[in-house]
């Protein structure tokens, strides 16, 4: 059972999480980082690109520079929410992607990795997770990015949609009680709902402790 974040006398922020909760959070953080990399084509041919960038041939260096700056418009709907168009003008939006998307992606992936290593360092069993102020900021951003991905998978579009999803889940449970059912898709969305709630609760608790 998770215990909310609190400010310790030395100024650090601590919460208590079960081993299973830490593993789940680390896993969804990993999946979010993988999704960003796959959808934006980061790391794809990274080594080849680096070799080209160090090449003696100026044309190859130029090509590498150009390829490194290429910024794909995300095709996954969740990644589009993480990397939204910065302008309603398509050509401006395109320009901003070219200029800033790679840095934005690097920052998000760094936050997610940092959270994974904090959770790893906290160990497998039930125990304390301690953050300094800077780590708390990474944690807030990473939890938020993961929640954005989960919300997309749950189809949340408008305020109040999560309440509707919860209500449908509860109705579903009652129907299941009445008779045998249990398709896998349903079980899958139950897990997503539970993880989304855990992350929302944890993020809110960290915000209160920081306040």
């Amino acid at each position, binding site marked *: 059972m998770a215990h909310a974040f609190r400010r310790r006398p030395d100024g650090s922020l601590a919460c208590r999480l079960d081993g299973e909760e830490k593993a789940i959070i680390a896993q969804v953080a990993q999946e979010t980082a993988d999704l960003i990399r796959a959808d934006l084509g980061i790391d794809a041919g990274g080594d080849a690109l680096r070799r080209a960038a160090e090449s003696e041939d100026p044309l190859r260096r130029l090509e590498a520079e150009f390829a490194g700056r290429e910024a794909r418009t995300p095709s996954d709907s969740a990644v589009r*929410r*993480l*990397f*939204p*168009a*910065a*302008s*309603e003008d398509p050509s*401006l939006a395109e320009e*901003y992607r070219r200029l*800033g998307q790679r*840095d*934005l992606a690097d*920052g*998000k992936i760094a936050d997610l990795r940092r959270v994974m290593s904090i959770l790893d360092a906290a160990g497998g069993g039930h125990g304390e997770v301690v953050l300094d102020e800077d780590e708390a*900021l990474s944690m*807030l*951003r990473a939890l*938020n*990015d993961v*929640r*954005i991905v989960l*919300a997309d998978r749950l189809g*949340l*579009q*408008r*305020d*109040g*949609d*999560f*309440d509707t999803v919860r209500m449908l889940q509860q109705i579903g449970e009652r129907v299941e009680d009445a008779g045998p059912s249990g398709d896998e898709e349903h079980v899958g969305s139950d897990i997503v709902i539970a993880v989304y709630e855990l992350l*929302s609760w944890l*993020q*809110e608790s960290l*915000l*209160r402790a*920081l*306040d």
Partner: protein
Amino acid sequence: MPVDLPRAVPRTRTRTRTDTASEERTTLETEGPWCTVVWNDPVNLMSYVVFVFRRYFGYSRVVAEQLMMQVHEDGRAIVSRGSREKVETDVQAMHSFGLQSTIEKAGEV
């Protein structure tokens, strides 16, 4: 923004809109023809949006909460103004926090 978080209801709700609006005008950067717009979405917690506005822009709690409520109720709010370069930096920062944000030329909408 989800509304089920009791703590997130700002204490300033009893104030009139004109109170906070005039305060906002004096506090926000008013220079320059470009604006940073933040859009409502169903994921970001109200408390998180207030945290981001305070942390990144250095706004007071009252101003940050007023802007958050404007995003929540009107669907969008102008959260900073300035040169194009400054606003581009602000929009990128909002994206780094996972907020939906666009750059807009002042007076466009």
